[in-house]
């Protein structure tokens, strides 16, 4: 249950479960925090019960949820508005752009159940386009935590992070913990492993696959640098350029369409800097999702450490 007082952040705890705990802990300390739900109050854990005056639920009406969030933020509130990533990023896209982002209001749009985490719910609920959509909107900061621990830390940082944010979290399961992580700083890629042969830049759930791939490659005497690119926008250009200088190829991994997301963002930097380097994007190659167990869907689309290993070996010949 997400309402338990203590969560073990060092365990394989789901990002959406941590989200509720983090918002509750933060919101009870900070009077400015408000939440807006579109029949999605479970995202906010106990906060809704403990601070009902600062929790709004508009029912199944995402556009209204985001506009009301903007109104609250205009009056000095720090607003977390959250529901399924598909619905909030697309049904309420114009509200995010026009009502929130233009004024760079303190609204933290949290898209949950992103990527393939909805599993059997199928393509209607699987968000594979949200990062691309949000990237095209000026002022939006886009953050994709790798695991529960990082989600908890990032939510707390967002209270002091001025402006419009899109935070992408997953569902209530399937989020393995990343071991030996350091402190997450918004806008700064985290180097999880240093390496000289190849770089894997990943975000969200794919960070775990990247680390696993690096371990497998290491047994084959291939040294892999792994970057956790939790902030997709503004992206850490320096980290990308350094990776291109230090290794012989770059692979990106994301639970998202290969158009518009992390891979595209990295490619833009490489191209604009005139860096010619072998480069491969692992993600969903311009397809809609399919119903299934998340694990099986990952295998179907090649969102696995095995595919990353194979891709690295192909690049390195």
């Amino acid at each position: 249950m997400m309402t338990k007082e203590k969560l073990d952040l060092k365990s394989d705890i789901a990002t959406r479960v941590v989200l509720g705990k983090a918002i509750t802990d933060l919101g009870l300390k900070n009077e400015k925090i408000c939440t807006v739900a579109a029949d999605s109050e479970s995202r906010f854990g106990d906060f809704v019960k403990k601070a009902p005056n600062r929790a709004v639920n508009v029912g199944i009406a995402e556009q209204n949820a985001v506009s009301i969030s903007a109104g609250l933020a205009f009056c000095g509130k720090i607003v977390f508005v959250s529901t399924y990533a598909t619905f909030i990023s697309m049904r309420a896209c114009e509200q995010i752009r026009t009502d929130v982002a233009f004024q760079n209001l303190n609204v933290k749009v949290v898209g949950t159940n992103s990527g393939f985490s909805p599993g059997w719910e199928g393509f209607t609920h699987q968000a594979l386009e949200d990062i691309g959509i949000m990237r095209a909107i000026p002022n939006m900061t886009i953050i994709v935590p790798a695991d529960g621990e990082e989600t908890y830390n990032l939510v707390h940082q967002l209270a002091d992070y001025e402006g419009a944010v899109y935070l992408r979290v997953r569902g209530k399961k399937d989020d393995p913990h990343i071991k030996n992580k350091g402190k997450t700083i918004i806008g700064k890629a985290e180097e999880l492993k240093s390496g000289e042969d190849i770089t894997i830049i990943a975000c969200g759930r794919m960070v775990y696959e990247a680390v696993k791939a690096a371990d497998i490659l290491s047994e084959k005497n291939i040294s892999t640098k792994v970057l956790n690119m939790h902030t997709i926008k503004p992206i850490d250009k320096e980290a990308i350029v350094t990776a291109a200088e230090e290794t012989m190829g770059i692979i990106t991994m994301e639970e998202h369409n290969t158009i518009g997301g992390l891979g595209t963002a990295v490619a833009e930097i490489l191209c604009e800097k005139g860096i010619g380097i072998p480069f491969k994007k692992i993600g969903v190659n311009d397809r809609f999702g399919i119903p299934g167990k998340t694990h099986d869907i990952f295998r179907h689309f090649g969102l696995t450490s095995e595919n990353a290993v194979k891709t690295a070996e192909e690049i390195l010949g």
Partner: protein
Amino acid sequence: MTNTSLTLNEINELKETALKMRKTAIKMATKAGEAHLGPALDLTEIIVTLYSKIMNYRASDPKWPKRDRLILSKGHGCLALYTILAEKGFYEKELLDTFCTQLDTLFGGHPEVKVPGIEANTGSLGHGFNIGIGMAKAAQIDNFDYKVYTILGDGENQEGSIWEGAMAAPNLNIDNLIAIVDRNHLQVSGRTEKIMNIDPLKNKWESFGWAVQEIDGHDFSQIYNALNSAPFKPGKPSLIIANTIKAKGLSFAENKVEWHHKVPNEEEYRIADKELGLGGLNDD
């Protein structure tokens, strides 16, 4: 607020302000060569009453947290707002000369918060009203007693998001929100009845949980009495259906669909000058 009505003197003063605003708006539109003039002229009496008799605000401190707020959800009527805010001292009147004539002007074709006194960036219909609900909710959270006024176009009632908000506000027990529908029966390509009928409007809003009054949107006494008595029912948001005439005050343009975004040509300006005493385009 007390329940007294406006005196004759007060009404005459309001009429004077309204005429001044109409003249300024017509000149601005003519100079710029493009504007939504008709949708602004029909708001004049409502906006003059709000800023002269109803709303609490500080022109020298536009962000005063306890101020009443007006959101023009039908943002294209912004000429009415630009002119009254100048009139009430939010900024120098001379600045209005930049309306749609200077790159990155404060005063574009739709209102932006960078203009002192403008509360939301509106223009895309079905947004401002809902932002207003958020602001009204914030007053509840902060225990402030300010009110939020929001003006909707009648065509704007065709947007789905309006009804999301219409459903939410009563459920959130918001009674410091007063929405005004500018019921001029015209939208960009024809009469609302023909494009997508929104009637019965009063019944619709009442059935969503609003307390509704219908008034003549050009009659200062009716406007004042309605606004002054809001909330009409404790615990409920209030809706005023203000029956108006599009492009009111510009005789040849009144109630004509093309004046949604038409501006006077030379001949029309001469007629308007004769009727309203505009003077030269650049006269004060």
